[in-house]
């Protein structure tokens, strides 16, 4: 009986505590920068698309919500012809971001994606592409990768030595 009265008193004291509720539309909640929210496709510092359409994100996606088609431009750079994310399926697990070898696909701290129609939840490439480099400023895949594209032969990337000519005997 005594413990009942005590717990009633303690509960009553909660009337004078600060309330935990965040009154959402008026007060925006503090969202950590690593929050896994709306997915975007970033660009490298030169403004080119980072995505090289390797399909790794689509393979990693546990709910198969990513669809894309690889293409190649005249400089030998791969890019997605289309890139589609169905956010009505997406579970925001972030596996695509982990799988991405070029830091192209990234999750952002934006969660306000409510729509009245399911079809509006299917984001196309132009909806996903942003103009900046996202979380990785200064990173350009083609500048650090050994791959040769037009305008950059093998061995010309950053921190890369020219390739060894294995058929030559010269030191």
């Amino acid at each position, binding site marked *: 009986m005594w413990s*009942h009265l005590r*717990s*009633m008193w303690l509960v009553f004291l909660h009337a004078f505590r*600060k*309330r*935990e509720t965040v009154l959402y539309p008026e007060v925006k909640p503090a969202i950590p920068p690593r929050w896994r929210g709306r997915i975007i496709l970033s660009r490298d510092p030169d403004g080119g698309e980072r995505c090289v359409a390797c399909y790794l994100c689509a393979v990693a996606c546990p709910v198969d919500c990513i669809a894309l088609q690889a293409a190649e431009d005249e400089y030998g750079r791969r890019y997605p012809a289309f890139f589609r994310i169905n956010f009505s399926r997406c579970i925001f697990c972030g596996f695509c971001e982990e799988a991405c070898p070029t830091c192209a696909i990234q999750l952002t701290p934006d969660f306000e994606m409510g729509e009245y129609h399911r079809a509006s939840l299917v984001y196309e490439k132009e909806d996903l592409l942003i103009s900046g480099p996202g979380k990785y400023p200064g990173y350009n895949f083609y500048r650090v990768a050994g791959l040769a594209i037009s305008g950059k032969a093998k061995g010309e990337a950053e921190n890369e030595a020219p390739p060894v000519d294995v058929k030559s005997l010269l030191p």
Partner: protein
Amino acid sequence: MNVTGTLITIAAVLVAALAIAGLNIWLERRLLGLWQDRYGPNRVGPFGLLQVLADMIKIFTKEDWIPPFADKPVFVIAPGIIVVTTLIAFAVIPYAPGVVVSGLDIGVLFFLAMSSLGVYSVVLAGWASDSKYALIGGLRAVAQMLGYEVYLGLSIMGVVMLAGSFNLRLIVEAQRNLWFCIPQFLGLVIFFIAGVAEAHRLPFDLPEAESELVAGYHSEYSGMKFALFFFGEYLGITLISAMIATLFFGGWLGPWLPPLAWFALKTFFFICFFILLRASLPRPRYDQLMAWGWKIMLPLALANILVTGAVIVTRG
């Protein structure tokens, strides 16, 4: 009192009781929120007051489903009973000097009778639903209410003996010098606990215990019929609170404020106390509840009557 006066009082009491029962829903949600460090409904209207209205509109437009296996007439009648009996019991409560629907000389007995009839609602609902959870809920309600009914009545007898009347107006008048909550403190505690069980409110809501019985006796109910059960429960809280105020806390008596305001304040306080009970106490096991009722509360209520009687006799 003339006929028009009585009719006006009846209409006022009816409207007030229904409005208060409706507002109780809002009050309960806000107070539970307050005691759980959150806000509760605060969007619809000022302080979320129109939430009740929104809920009503919603529940009116819901499908009113009667299961094909149910006993249809009984299933339909059951939710009405609890609302009707509780509303009728409001007739004998004196709200202020002269403001009462019926100054029955057996007001206390009338209240006890009407609140006992409410059990039919629960048991018929449980029976007519033809579902095991509803049936278990209904059976629990019967056993619980039978057990607690006994000393709900016995706990008031001390008050009746002190006032020398079953008339609620005379009982209030008898508290002019001293509220009965002091000489009849034990009676107050017993009456309050029995009242909680009578309104089958938490922590004594074993008939609907949602963690074990889905929703107990109203598992199969939906739409307006479910709302009636809900309404009956809140009417019951209001009724028990008003009775506590009348029997033990001097009803309308009090300084400065008008009598009606005192009555409303006291009732409001006990409604809040009911909600605090819900916010803080866990539900007992069913056998604990029954054992408590029969082995502790009943002997205590009887002892209370004995001692009160002995004191009255020795004082002459």
